[in-house]
């Protein structure tokens, strides 16, 4: 980027999935806020998990001569070309929350460790279930990498216990409404279900609502993300647990590394940085705010 230095503050493009999910909204706003503090002009846009739209957003950022791009990408493979394009246009890319299946293109890939988080919540789930009983799994969009990683994380723990039996597994495409209706129907096939483990909090909340309306409040529901709604639900005794991805922190880190890179020419850190997730339960729920410790 040659132009921007001459006119106005340098811009930093923050590209994330749709802000109608509080998680991405939080990370985008955290990044933007930090960027402003560091004297940049942030632009926020959303690719709705559509790699093609993401590609177009990167194009625009390039045309816009952004100084750096903070990206929560739309697919580990589908995003590689876009990131490479930005790099060859001389714009450093800092990935947050989701990694891509290529190294040496992005300057940093700062992700909350989905696998670690998944096994964390799975262990809590095992504890709550008392190591035995029937459970249902709700997975995210099956064509989404994180959905796969989380499922793997769940099962690497759950499958060790013979007492635990998965009686149903469906995708609810990350959606609350779909989760609600899917669970309503699935519990018809197996009324004696004891727990539901969901790939994210919105699905977990949908499941909890369905179970409540079916008079099965005591079914154990755990999720993933640590969204404010989920935490509220945990405090209110709806959901039992979730893992919080420190989205806001990750976003801020990315911006800081971008600043360092732009000023010093290097972040001085490895490209891949995995940040551990934190387990949220009724016990510690009150310590957490919007995707971060209070």
């Amino acid at each position, binding site marked *: 980027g040659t132009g921007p230095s001459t006119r106005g503050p340098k811009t930093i493009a923050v590209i994330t999935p*749709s*802000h*109608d*999910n*509080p998680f991405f*909204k939080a990370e985008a706003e955290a990044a933007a806020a930090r960027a402003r503090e560091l004297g940049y002009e942030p632009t926020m846009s959303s690719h709705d998990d559509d790699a093609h739209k993401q590609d177009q957003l990167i194009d625009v950022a390039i045309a816009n001569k952004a100084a750096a791009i903070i990206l929560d990408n739309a697919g580990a493979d589908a995003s590689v070309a876009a990131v490479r394009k930005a790099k060859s246009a001389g714009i450093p890319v800092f990935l947050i929350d989701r990694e891509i299946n290529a190294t040496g293109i992005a300057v940093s890939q700062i992700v909350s460790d989905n696998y670690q988080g998944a096994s964390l919540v799975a262990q809590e789930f095992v504890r709550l279930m008392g190591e035995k009983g029937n459970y249902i799994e709700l997975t995210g969009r*099956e064509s989404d990498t994180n959905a796969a990683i989380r499922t793997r994380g769940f099962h690497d723990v759950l499958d060790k216990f013979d007492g635990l039996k998965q009686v*149903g*597994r*469906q*995708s609810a495409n990350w959606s*609350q*409404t779909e989760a*609600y*209706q*899917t669970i*309503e*129907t*699935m519990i*018809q*096939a197996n009324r004696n279900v004891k727990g539901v483990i969901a790939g994210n909090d*919105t699905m977990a*909340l*949908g499941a909890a*609502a*369905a179970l*409540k*309306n079916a008079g099965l409040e005591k079914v154990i529901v755990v999720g993933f993300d640590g969204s404010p*709604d989920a935490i*509220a*639900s945990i405090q*209110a005794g709806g959901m039992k647990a979730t893992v919080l991805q420190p989205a806001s922190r990750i976003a801020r880190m990315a911006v800081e590394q971008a600043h360092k890179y732009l000023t010093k020419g290097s972040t001085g850190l490895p490209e891949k940085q995995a940040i551990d997730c934190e387990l949220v339960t009724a016990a510690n729920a009150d310590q957490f705010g919007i995707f971060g410790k209070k």
Partner: protein
Amino acid sequence: MTPAETTRRTAVASAPKLQLFLAAQLFRLRALIALFVLSGVFAALSPSFLTSANLTILVEHVAINAILGVGMTFVILSGGIDLSVGSIAGLAGIVAGGLIHQGLILRTFGVVVYPHTWLVIAVALLAGAVVGAFNGVLIAYAGIAPFIVTLGSLYVARGTALLLSNGATFPDLGGKPDLGNTGFLWLGSGSVLGIPVPIWMMIMIAAAGMFVAGRTPFGRRMYSVGGNERAAELSGVRVPRIKLAVYVISGICAAAVGLIIAAQLASAHPATGESFELNAIAAVVLGGTSLMGGRGSVGGTLIGAFVIGVLADGLILLGVSEFWQVVIKGLVIIAAVILDQMQHHYARRAAAMIRT
């Protein structure tokens, strides 16, 4: 006119009372065949399919499409289309959610008012009616293509919902007794005489829809507008009013759906209802209503909605993989209509036989 419609058209034709009645029954039966086949298959493959509990849930899910479908049938019968129903549902949910969760903030007085639940529901329905009226006015009086207008308001309504909630979800809509705004959840999880409220709403809205479409001057005029707008106008039908009305009705139905979903989830999400329009229209067309307008029935739409609902839930019950679900859904939608037409074809043959 497509052969499909030619058949439909001559379907209604049949001479003396008896055959007429017969034909009418066959006409009603149309998509039913597909429905029976589907239900049969699922009943055979999954023991829990025919349990009363599951059937209740099933009908509860159907209610969503059915209620949207009733409004959509009105719009399509009058020769239009409404793509904005999904967004309206989302908007209505957010309006209700907002009013219950954070109340009405009156900056000037620096006070927050929490309206009573009934008022909340009324306002949400009103929101739906307003978007519907917005559609109707542009279509009926400015003469803009329905597809464009409702595509536009699809975005406008969705965006408004997102702005209102700032993208966030309004949680725990149970309300607080001290604020006197409890009871909203009853819409989603309550039940009367052992039948869930959403099902009651479907029954009432469908019944009203059938009556209005089939027995009232308004209904007749609506059909005529869809059948031949110019002739209708020359016959003294106030075409613009009719059009305005159908979009308002569709808007209200969509808002009702939004309320049900919000009440079921006990929370309102601005993205609720995305791509509902496709399912609603599919229900209408599966039910034998012509997208050219003027031909069809609310009853048919109900059956169409059931076909879609049974399919979706049945596949989940069987635990079919997501990908196969997508393929099968597509095939069944097409198969249903083919079946419908074949059966219909023979019905007419038969009818003709009787006469000669």
